């Protein structure tokens, strides 16, 4: 048998597939045995490569760093589900009101009680402010991940992509509802957010540095994070909206 190659010696060390007769050859050939011993000793040395020690409370430290992330994950998940439910309720309320109004416009009745059509609208206004706040918080966290990433490097956006996909549907419903309610500021911000959310949701799992830089430019150019924070702050502390044409909208 000819001398063993380095590959055969390494395979023998790891007990990977190797030609028959290797152990016997090593027993008979001093040169090959010396080569094998060198490889074995090198690999044993590497096995002793130091790993920095972590203290006994390392797990607790990790948990403390993780806790808020897991909490926001749970809130986001719950918020998304309840957001969808509220959005669905808003949509039903809006279309019911719209249908009711259309029906009465065909046959105007002067004595129609104003409270009937005003009720869904007032409710939807309040609900809209409530749910848009949560929606904007979730959207902000997605945008922050992208905006704060290093534009020189690729970015893994698997989670953001999934979250953006969830946010697109609710964003659309809130925008339509805000438009119908005459809340143009919220509608405008949501309209600005929509194409960016769609772009993130349609991206691959990894953004190249060029794609990332392009997306960051768009977020910055439209001042999206600033707008989101302003509206988010307003929705968390809403003041009664002066709506001079509210009465004129009633039938």
């Amino acid at each position, binding site marked *: 048998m000819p001398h063993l190659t*380095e*590959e055969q010696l*390494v395979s023998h060390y*790891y007990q*990977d597939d190797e030609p028959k007769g290797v152990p016997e050859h090593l027993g008979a050939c*001093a040169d090959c*045995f*010396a080569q094998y*011993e*060198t*490889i074995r*000793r*090198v*690999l*044993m*040395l*590497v*096995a*002793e*490569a*130091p*790993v*920095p020690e*972590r203290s006994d409370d*390392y*797990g*607790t430290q*990790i*948990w403390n*760093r*993780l*806790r808020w*992330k*897991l909490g926001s*994950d*749970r809130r986001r998940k719950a918020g998304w589900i309840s957001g969808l439910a509220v959005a669905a309720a808003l949509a039903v309320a809006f279309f019911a009101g719209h249908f009711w109004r259309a029906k009465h416009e065909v046959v105007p009745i002067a004595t129609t009680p104003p409270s009937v059509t005003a009720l869904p609208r007032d409710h939807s206004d309040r609900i809209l402010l409530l749910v848009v706040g949560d929606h904007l918080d979730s959207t902000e966290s997605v945008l922050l991940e992208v905006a704060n990433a290093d534009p020189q*490097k*690729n*970015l*893994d956006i698997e*989670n953001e992509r999934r979250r953006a996909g969830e946010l697109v549907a609710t964003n659309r419903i809130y925008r339509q509802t805000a438009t119908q309610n005459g809340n143009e500021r919220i509608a405008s911000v949501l309209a600005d957010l929509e194409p960016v959310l769609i772009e993130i949701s349609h991206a691959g799992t*990894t953004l190249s540095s060029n794609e990332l830089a392009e997306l960051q430019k768009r977020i910055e150019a439209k001042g999206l994070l600033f707008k989101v924070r302003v509206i988010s702050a307003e929705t968390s502390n809403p003041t009664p909206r002066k709506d001079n044409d509210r009465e004129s909208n009633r039938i």
Partner: protein
Amino acid sequence: MELTDLAAVSRARGGDADAFRTLVERHSRAIFRVAYRMTGNEHDADDVVQETFLRAYRQIDRFEERANFGTWVHRIAINCSLDLLRSRGRHEKHRVNDSEDGEMIREFESTDPQPDRLLLSAELQQHVVSALDRLSGNERTAFMLRHFEGMPVEEIGRTLGIQVNAAKHTIFRAVRKLRESLEPFVRSTPCRT
């Protein structure tokens, strides 16, 4: 009575944060060791540990009860480490200056290189770290998976998205580079028993 991993997973699935905390506290140090060996950097390893448990939490419904949680989370850690290495483009990065290497080798050549004695040497440990840092990202990963994790070559190929032969040769290249760097410290007359 101590909560088993399986019971903790079951409770964590039901939204019990303390149960998941138990899993984090129990496995963090082991995951750090894997992450450090894969990334070669403490801060990166800390990031990998966090990301690993975040992913584990998000995917906990996918955990199969017949599996071992430690093994499962271990595998997530390897994937997180790979993602981090890929995103940082370390694949072709060599961090050690060759001339410094040469000086260190000469410095150690005059010593009596008995492995068990040398293992006590902090300088030698540093040299091993440097030798590992000279490996490319793929070489380091393939080697670590084979050497420390005992992963079969076929699985290493799948993990790295390369053919089995390519995986095998990546490991060979890694061992050759390590041998080139470290052979001066282990060279001695073979002793048959």
